[in-house]
């Protein structure tokens, strides 16, 4: 299994998927930087980091997962490498399990980069314009914990998007689902049923309603793990024509 995992990470070398992993958090940091420079007075440090996390959870995470899963799957669909991989003398579930772990690891890396780059953007903006230097010290551990919960809550979203991306060789079904899901997650933010929507589960980690956050975490995390296991079993058994 370790060999399959190692192979999946090496495939990302010089790939668009890796570029996306850096570009998406960088966009949040760039936005934060210019947003700070627009202001004229100091704001609490945690407000800026929380703002970065919110953009990540609301929009960038579901869209990034949509794009990332499409790109990772297309690395195999594009050159039609499934036949080669599936003809090798190794259990097929390992190929899909390794790909799944790889995608989750990249989303985790993006979460870390979101916090790190947003922090760096705040620091740079404060030096460029001292008047907006944030007040207080950043509670990086608390923000990291929130991002970790968002990652856990996004497992169901990752499962749905990865399943679609690996099942269909065309970009279209996965992208349509991801864009549609993100759209409804954004426009129906306050809907009570939103907590059951995979694309909205990460953003529920920011709510003060304890029950809602716990529900989203349980369904997104546990449901996600179950869905990922089903996905791996399904893809390993089916024929790729």
């Amino acid at each position: 299994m370790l060999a399959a995992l190692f192979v999946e990470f090496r495939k990302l070398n010089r790939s668009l998927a890796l570029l996306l992993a850096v570009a998406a958090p960088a966009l949040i940091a760039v936005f934060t930087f210019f947003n700070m420079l627009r202001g004229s007075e100091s704001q609490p440090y945690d407000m800026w980091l929380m703002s970065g996390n919110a953009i990540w959870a609301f929009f960038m995470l579901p869209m990034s997962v949509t794009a990332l899963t499409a790109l990772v799957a297309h690395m195999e669909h594009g050159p039609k490498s499934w036949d080669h991989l599936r003809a090798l003398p190794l259990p097929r579930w390992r190929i899909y399990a390794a790909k799944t772990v790889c995608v989750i690891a990249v989303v985790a890396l993006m979460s870390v980069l979101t916090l790190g780059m947003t922090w760096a953007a705040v620091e740079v903006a404060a030096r460029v314009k001292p008047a907006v230097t944030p007040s207080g010290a950043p509670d990086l551990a608390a923000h990291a914990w929130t991002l970790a919960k968002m990652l856990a809550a996004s497992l169901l979203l990752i499962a749905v998007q990865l399943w679609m991306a690996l099942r269909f060789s065309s970009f279209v079904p996965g992208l349509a689902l991801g864009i549609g899901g993100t759209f409804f997650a954004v426009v129906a933010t306050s809907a009570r049923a939103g907590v059951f929507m995979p694309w909205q589960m990460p953003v529920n980690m920011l709510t003060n309603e304890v029950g809602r956050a716990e529900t989203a975490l349980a369904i997104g995390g546990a449901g996600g793990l179950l869905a990922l296991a089903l996905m791996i079993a399904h893809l390993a058994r089916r024929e790729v024509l």
Partner: protein
Amino acid sequence: MSAPAVRTHALSRSFKGRQAVDGVSMTVPARSVYGFLGRNGAGKTTTLKMLLGLLKPTSGSAALFGVDVGKDRLAAARKVGALLEAHGFYGNLSGGENLDLTRALLGLKRAELDRVLDVVEMRAHGDRRVADYSLGMRQRLGIARAMLGAPPLLVLDEPTNGLDPDGIADMRQFLRALPERTGATILVSSHLLGEIEQTATHVGILSEGRLVVEGELAALKATLAPELFIDADDLERADALARARGFSVLRTAEGLTARLAPRDDARAAAAALNRALVEAGIAVFSIAHKARSLEGIYRDASKQGAF
């Protein structure tokens, strides 16, 4: 006696009611070069995919060196390396990196990379990105990847597809040398008769999903009736004279093709026919023995209604 490299029994596969492979029972002897022939769409790739465990047969079975593919895919897969029509290389990685991924998945030592790159004479290009490779280089890299771990059977699906004439000539030379370099049995599919004739020891011809001819190439050729090609000033009289002497004759604008009985001595028949034509006052420009060829086997199969 060791098991054949490939043995299938009544192997069949249908797709949505269309019979792609129909009761194919083929035997590929160990250490042979087996040319798997047929038109595009004849069912070659579907058959090969079933041998590799990529498709499940609707009925029938396939075994590699005695290991049933359906019952123990992993054990069967350890005995085969394959070059499929779609290479499946990652364009963002170099040739060496692409091979290294498969090497890692197979749990092989790094030295194996250099070995297979040497066999396909690609070591100097191992650091270049696959996206910059020519089609011929990709084919060679695909064969190198199939050879990782030195499997006793290599399955090559249309290795000359898309190559220019120079590339085809290079690939032909390469395939000829491959059995000696690797010691493996080679199962190569193609629709190019000339290429297979120059490389294969055994052939199987597939038509509309059915195996219509199979055997050792030399033995199959020996069963073919020899033919004489005749060019003369009066083809009409020459035609009549040849028919009168018991030949079956095909007349074209270029001349006559006279088919002998399978065991006839072609040289003696040519001399006798030449003498008869000259004695009849017909000027003979040329008379030549046409060598028995794979094309003849293919044509005979088509006369059976196969093609």
